[in-house]
């Protein structure tokens, strides 16, 4: 490990702070993760146009001269109580190129950001980040001692259309023929699941001779019916251990199934397919 000025060499990666000309490399890493509506100007807006942007608080990892990972710190005032504020950094857009994941690059970036004295020189007292619980457990808590501030902010949502799911199903049908990838993955034909989700319109997903069909109108005559809320659906989409989350949701009655035993077994067998369908919803 070599440390010099504001850079750190560790195994095959070089960790350093932002330098002129890094913008394009950072955009390539960060923008594909955004919703398409945000993606094109996202980095420019969030960093270049931010009145508090300090390029020296951006850390990058490079290999053979190419930026393969990044971590951005945004300096800001944060309310500490009803009458006082403190300087804090929002740790955001930590991204690692898929080819370099699982090698501890993100962890090293978090540590590198702390090894630089820049944040403390600017008076930052806190660092905070937003992540799902699993990423935090694997990365933020062990690498940098983050604690969760659970329970103080709630999130609400409503969905009045499943157009994006219908579009996704159409795309999937175009990409695979009737004897394509779904069949090879063990998907059985003649299956129909209807979702009655609180906070959303009913939706049916059927797998039949012509492929997959998603519909907001044809919601009768299902093999199995799933009742739940948007929160449970979002949790199922988000969790890495899908099966455990699915079973937990069933046991806690946040997800209710009705239908024949065959239908419920079919639903279980189609979980991977359903996850693929709902992934971008």
């Amino acid at each position: 490990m070599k440390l010099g000025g504001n850079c750190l060499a560790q195994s095959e990666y070089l960790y350093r702070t932002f330098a002129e000309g890094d913008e394009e490399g950072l955009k390539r890493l960060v923008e594909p993760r955004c919703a398409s509506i945000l993606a094109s100007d996202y980095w420019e807006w969030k960093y270049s146009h931010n009145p508090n942007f300090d390029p020296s608080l951006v850390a990058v990892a490079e290999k053979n001269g190419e930026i393969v990972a990044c971590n951005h710190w945004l300096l800001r005032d944060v309310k500490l109580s009803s009458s006082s504020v403190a300087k804090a950094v929002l740790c955001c857009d930590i991204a690692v190129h898929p080819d370099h994941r699982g090698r501890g690059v993100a962890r090293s970036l978090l540590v590198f950001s702390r090894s630089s004295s820049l944040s403390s020189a600017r008076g930052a007292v806190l660092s905070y980040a937003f992540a799902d619980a699993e990423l935090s457990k694997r990365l933020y808590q062990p690498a940098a001692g983050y604690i969760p501030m659970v329970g103080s902010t709630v999130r609400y949502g409503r969905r009045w259309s499943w157009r994006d799911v219908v579009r996704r199903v159409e795309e999937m049908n175009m990409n695979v023929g009737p004897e394509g990838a779904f069949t090879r993955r063990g998907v059985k034909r003649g299956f129909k699941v209807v979702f009655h989700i609180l906070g959303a319109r009913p939706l049916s997903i059927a797998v039949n001779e012509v492929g997959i069909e998603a519909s907001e109108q044809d919601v009768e005559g299902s093999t199995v019916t799933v009742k739940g809320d948007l929160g449970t659906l979002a949790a199922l989409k988000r969790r890495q251990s899908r099966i455990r989350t699915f079973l937990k949701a069933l046991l806690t009655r946040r997800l209710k199934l009705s239908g024949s035993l065959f239908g419920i077994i079919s639903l279980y067998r189609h979980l991977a397919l359903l996850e693929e369908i709902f992934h971008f919803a």
Partner: protein
Amino acid sequence: MYESMNEYRVRTYEKGDETELARLFNEAYQAYAGFVPRTPEYWRWSCLDRPDVEKEGIVIVVHARKIVGYAVVGKSGNIWELCFDRGPDQERVGSLILDKAVDYLTRVGSDSVTLNLPSKDSVARQACERLGFSQLPPEIPFLSVLDFERLLGSLYSANQQRLMDFEGSFLIKFQDGPFWITPFVSMRVRNGGIDIASQKELCQAVIETDTRTLTSVLFGTEKALSALLRLKLKIRPLRELRTVLRLFSLLRVKEPWFVPGADLG
């Protein structure tokens, strides 16, 4: 574009609104911590200039020429900010803004809406539930302290009134000691003032802990007594237990932590 509803008028953003909107936001969330206090400059960047926000997506409710509430709605389906005056008509204003926000999103072709609210804001939560919203898994903020000396100084300033009659000297010793944290912090509280230093000093009580536990205690996610029972907080000599518990009780952040969507970046 204007639309009247009895004495309430709904309009979209007009140049120069940001000063009033920032004031309203800071006032409405006065009782919370964790958000960025709004200035017109920050509001312009976080809301007006956001890539998915257009002027028509900033829904403003006016009553007797005064802005009483607003929402910043992005075409991506996020309500980045929702804020309304906590007057006698707050339920009606809250519902009106949410209703208009959903109208806007259906017009621009969005399929869904999401927003962050403080868990203690029952008025806004009820307004959401009346409009068919359902609770989603939250974006959980994770917090880590970079500088305990500065943090303790800030917490002391925030609670100075309550600490006026408190006296004592304490040495905090970190058992885990990550490299960015100094291993010792000493605090001397007396005569309404505080001296904090990152060095080992002779003090009336020694507090042995780790950075995560102290962060949890100072930010109110764990009580000092519970950390003590879990053996994550040790106090020597034990006779200073009450003084140390009182110190943490006076210092800790009491306001609930709320992070509006616009602050997520």
